[in-house]
């Protein structure tokens, strides 16, 4: 636990010694705020009511998340592999799982900061209308869980390669595929196929959160997604020992 915390603090600080951390947070916040502004100023969106507006906003924010997460996670392991510092880290009295967890939690905290900044949007909305807060918070919970799952995938792809670029592209590619299968589900005619593709989509559990439905099944979906990706990361870090 103490070791995980040490890694966590180091990783979190290193986000902010380079412009990368500031850039990612600023880009995410500015793009989302711009989108919020556009939605608020379009009469047809405003006519839809605050609830549907927030839902549309969150769903669009997912796309920005898809672009931002690879940039956040690409350096976690790839940079250490490239510079060789992984050798020193792995010869410290640390468990592989502690290293993976510390790094993951650092990226997750950065995401949590970004999300907290974005909570200003529903506050602004509440000044001009009367939104249903529980539904909004449920949507943000879903968004946070979706982000945790994305970041765990990014952590895994970063552990596969020495190149940050490849790690980012690989993460983006996998997440995009897991996203697009949701569209296939909508196109499918047979109900069985529809169910299979819907189950594969990372986005479909999130959608029910935005409707205000918090189900254990969906929470467990994301938690197990994260767990599985981190498990793969630990195995990938250990893979050096099999060769």
């Amino acid at each position, binding site marked *: 636990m103490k070791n995980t915390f040490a890694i966590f603090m180091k990783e979190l600080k290193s986000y902010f010694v380079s412009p990368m951390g500031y850039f990612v947070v600023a880009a995410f916040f500015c793009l989302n705020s711009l989108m919020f502004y556009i939605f608020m100023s379009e009469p047809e969106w405003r006519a839809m009511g605050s609830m549907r507006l927030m839902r549309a906003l969150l769903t669009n924010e997912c796309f920005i998340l898809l672009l931002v997460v690879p940039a956040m996670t690409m350096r976690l392991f790839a940079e250490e592999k490239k510079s060789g510092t992984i050798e020193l880290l792995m*010869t410290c009295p640390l468990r592989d799982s502690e290293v993976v967890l510390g790094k993951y939690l650092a990226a997750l905290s950065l995401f949590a900061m970004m999300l907290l900044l974005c909570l200003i949007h529903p506050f602004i909305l509440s000044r001009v209308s009367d939104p249903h807060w529980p539904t909004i918070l449920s949507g943000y919970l879903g968004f946070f869980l979706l982000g945790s799952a994305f970041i765990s995938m990014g952590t895994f792809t970063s552990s596969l390669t020495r190149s940050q670029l490849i790690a980012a592209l690989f993460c983006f590619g996998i997440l995009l595929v897991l996203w697009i299968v949701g569209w296939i589900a909508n196109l499918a005619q047979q109900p069985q196929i529809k169910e299979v593709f819907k189950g594969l989509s990372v986005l479909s559990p999130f959608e029910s959160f935005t409707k205000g439905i918090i189900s254990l099944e969906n929470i467990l979906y994301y938690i197990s997604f994260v767990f599985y990706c981190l498990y793969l990361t630990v195995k990938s870090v250990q893979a050096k020992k099999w060769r």
Partner: protein
Amino acid sequence: MRSLIEVEHLTKFYGAFPAIQDISFRVEKGDIMGFLGPNAAGKTTTMRILTCFMPATSGNARVAGCDIFSDPLETRRHIGYLPESVPLYTDMSVFSYLKFMACVKGVPRKQRNGRIASVIDSCGLSERSSDLIGHLSKGYRQRVGIAQALVHDPDVLILDEPTVGLDPKQINEIRGLIKGLGGNRTIVLSTHILPEVAMICNKVVIIDEGKVIAMDSPENLTQQLMQSRRVRIIVRGPSILIEERLKDIPGIKRVERKNPSEDAPCVFELESNLEIDIRSSAAAQIVKNGWELLELRSISMSLEDIFLKLTTKEKEAIPL
């Protein structure tokens, strides 16, 4: 008493290629052991196995009483390691880096600042402790690398080519630093520079193509491999006559003329049995004949010669 490092029949294959084969050695407490070999001899592989960075294909090893395969976490607590490329986080300051390393190496919170101050002091980093590591010169980075290896006060220090890529002044400083660290600590350092071993180490393991080919103290190695004593003399006089007279000296095995020219003083190399010192009888012989003795000195075999002799032995054995 048990040795601090015990390596038994360690073998590592990369695919079908054997990086090291059946390596065994022991290092006692307080020893500074030089791990000597040409490039790609298996030095780094052995060190990576000892630090639990990668497992061996077969064999056993214990460091400070811990089995490196069954108890890697405890083993790592006893080892301070500096890899060859000196990988450091360049975006951290020296102090915060050492603090992070002290933390992950399990130095208790209360002792942390004391330990960091002590390694900063002993590695000569006091003036640079707030600088970013990325801004430091190679020599100072090497010091930071050694400082992080020392920060948890390990019993065993493993340094992979600690002086490679430094300028002569820095090399001297780092060598002095390493020498000063010995005493109650056991140090294993790898190198392909021979004088370094003679200067710092009290034990040498020479490996070549993944096999241990010699293991002893630098002095003993020199002794063992010196089967004969060699003397070089320079004399002014009739060369053929001198050569004949020198051959008459009892105990001499071989006389070799080094320069064929007649006018210049003659240079000879004399080889004798190890037990007999022929210097005085050679001098007496020359003086008796009234020739001018310009120089007389014994040639000792350097570690370099031994190394070359050992690593090229097999090739020499093949008849031409």
